[in-house]
């Protein structure tokens, strides 16, 4: 572990567009063998971060280390070791899958013809049809195939399943899972498909307005978030809920609902001591945690 550099290491990253700060003083690491899901609403700074990481854009300040090297200065060399599935499938419209694969094979010394051919068959992507005439799902599958073709050390997936139907999305994730099983690659993925990424991610980052509000393992994150539901006649005062560190407190048709970001035995004991006020304590899916964190008007610490 010690001799391989951390695949992604950002320190104090700032990205500005004129007066607008898209990313503020952001630090995060993606460890070897992990699957880091970077989540955020549109305009939260995800794409700026990814572009800086891939050397497509210069940061205002901060350090960006990709596979242990400077992401900007070494960008050309580094891209041979990274597989990228961009947000918008991007390839010359007239080129067929066969031509694209042949083209890419010359760019990468580590190109694996056999696995590319096998993957295209599994996806049933026609090899002789121009890129521009493939379906959206086929384009996504082809992009993933090309991104994996050179056996990259790091895979960067920028909202790879956006606009894909349920079946194409499932196939995409099945293929990603198979790749993880076979090679154990390191992955950085941005997505809005939280249900799908929940089973695959080992780490989660949640961006809001250019700030990283959450940056931790998926398991500890899920272990500390709980929804508390109170009946109408037993709802505690807002101050009491703040004392528990409640993030999102909202009145529902049934009473009061609060999300507690640091639920533990002490919180449970306190609720117990105050009489059976908590009607229900429920674990949360990643999607619910995400909504509570970014939907929280005040922003701040999660």
């Amino acid at each position, binding site marked *: 572990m010690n001799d391989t550099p951390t695949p992604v290491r950002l320190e104090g990253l700032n990205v500005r567009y004129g007066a607008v700060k898209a990313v503020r003083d952001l630090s995060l690491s993606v460890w070897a063998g992990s699957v880091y899901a970077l989540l955020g609403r549109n305009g939260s700074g995800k794409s700026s971060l990814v572009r800086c990481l891939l050397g497509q854009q210069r940061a205002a300040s901060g350090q960006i280390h990709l596979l242990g090297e400077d992401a900007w200065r070494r960008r050309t060399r580094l891209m041979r070791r990274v597989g990228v599935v961009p947000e918008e499938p991007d390839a010359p419209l007239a080129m067929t899958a066969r031509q694209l694969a042949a083209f890419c094979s010359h760019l990468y010394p580590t190109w694996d013809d056999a696995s590319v051919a096998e993957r295209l068959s599994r996806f049933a992507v026609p090899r002789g049809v121009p890129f521009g005439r493939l379906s959206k799902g086929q384009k996504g599958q082809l992009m993933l195939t090309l991104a994996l073709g050179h056996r990259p050390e790091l895979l960067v997936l920028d909202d790879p399943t956006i606009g894909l139907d349920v079946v194409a999305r499932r196939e995409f994730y099945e293929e990603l899972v198979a790749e993880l*099983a*076979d090679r154990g690659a390191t992955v950085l993925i941005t997505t809005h498909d939280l*249900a799908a990424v929940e*089973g*695959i991610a080992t780490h989660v980052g949640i961006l809001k307005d250019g700030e990283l509000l959450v940056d931790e393992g998926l*398991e500890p994150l899920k*272990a500390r978030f709980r929804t508390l539901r109170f009946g109408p006649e037993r709802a505690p005062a807002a101050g009491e809920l703040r004392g528990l560190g409640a993030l999102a407190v909202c009145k529902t048709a049934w009473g009061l609902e609060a999300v507690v970001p640091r639920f533990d035995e002490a919180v449970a004991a306190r609720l117990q001591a105050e009489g059976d006020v908590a009607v229900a304590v*429920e*674990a949360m*899916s990643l999607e619910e945690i995400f909504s509570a964190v970014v939907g929280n008007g005040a922003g701040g610490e999660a």
Partner: protein
Amino acid sequence: MSAVVHIDPKDAAPIWRQIEDGVRRLVASGALAPGAPVPSVRELARELRINPATVAKGYQRLVDAGVLLVRRGEGTFVADNPPPTTATERREELAAAARRFAALAATLGAARSETVNSIEKAWDEFAAARKGRGQ
């Protein structure tokens, strides 16, 4: 394999634990017989679309506990003599289910006696049906 393991993202237990518990339950109920093959890590991960490392962690714990065994080059199987569910495990699982039931009963406004009665009735019905099937 007709027996399946389910994953629930809203479950408080981590996914590897859900796999571990799910397989244990299938073995305990006889749905997975001693010596029966179980899906490979790769197959199960792909089917459930979850990280293979998570499946591997659940399987490893089952191997360590003697529920599953790995035969090199052949695959993973239920052990010939899987350890029976321990008294502690049974107690914990029963207690957890009882807490859920008690919470439901309290929410419905049922009295203690009514709640206990309903469990006894359900038990009697289940026992009678089981007897009827000759088990």
